[in-house]
């Protein structure tokens, strides 16, 4: 935590990473639905 307190740019990087991780997880969920559809053929 002290490291992040002294290097705030990493906090910004973490926040950007959290956003992309969230969007990626949502897309993964959609990808899972597509896989289910493909397997159900």
């Amino acid at each position: 935590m002290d490291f992040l307190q002294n290097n705030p740019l990493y906090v910004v990087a973490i926040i950007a990473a959290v956003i992309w991780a969230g969007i990626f997880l949502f897309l993964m969920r959609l990808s899972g639905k597509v896989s289910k559809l493909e397997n159900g053929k």
Partner: protein
Amino acid sequence: MIFALCFGTSIFLSFSTPVAGGFRDTAMLMMLGVSKQTPVAVTLGNRISDSSSISTYSSKDRFDAERILHVPNSFALQSGMTVVGECSFTPSDSSYTLMNVQRVNPAMIFPLIQGLGELGRNILFHVPMSFIAFIAFLVGTFYSILFLRKGNLKYDLHARAASSLGLMFTTLATVTGSIWARFSWGKFWDWDEPRETSILVLLLIYIAYFLLRSLLEDTEEKKARLAAVYNIIAFATVPFLMFVLPRITRSLHPGSGSEAPVINLSGKTHIDPSFSLFLWINVACFAILFFIIKDLYIRIETIRQQREPNYD
């Protein structure tokens, strides 16, 4: 492809553009004992004096304030150059000394927000999340109204897609806000902070929307009708929880009390133009991303419903 390139460039510039203030920030933060050195953007003017190791320039900062600046000759700077670097203030002769050089002649500079510094860049990520969440809930409600008027189940699917994306963007805004709060206010979560509490209530309201859909054991038509009514009622709370409550209560969050929020009805963003430009570019990029994912969601769900008619 072009969208991905624009979005990537915008995110890259959101990180790489230097943050810099003016001479006044350096003096103020030093006097307050916050920091001895502050990043300042200066344009070197006439050289006043010269010694073997240090040259003295009459320099202007980004707010056109003219001050005396000492620059070590080892930096190899010349008159007319715009430099971003950390400066220290000497109260005895009201002069400034350039301690290091971070960037020479930068294309753009982000403003130094006192108390935030580099953390100010988070505005470019956190604010678009909240804004797109509101747009998503608005789109969801619009389709719920359309469904109730026309009775076509495809509008219900649009409402579900938009609301689920709204829930995702609200969650991301809450998580990113919480991380930011830890490093600005000292705590990840504070129950006395109206903005945090109100956004949690909003999250719970929309989680209930999806729980309602999944728990109902009724025909698709009836389920969709009930969910649409709930969605419209849920949206009625959004302006109150997102805009009204945080304005009428005192809070550490910007835009509380009489302070104007970053994005507001007057159409003016209360931030520096360079910041504002990137903020709107990021808002536009996340908005496009919202519509792309929403479209994908609808196409997948449409195929699934065609193949598995009884599935919800």
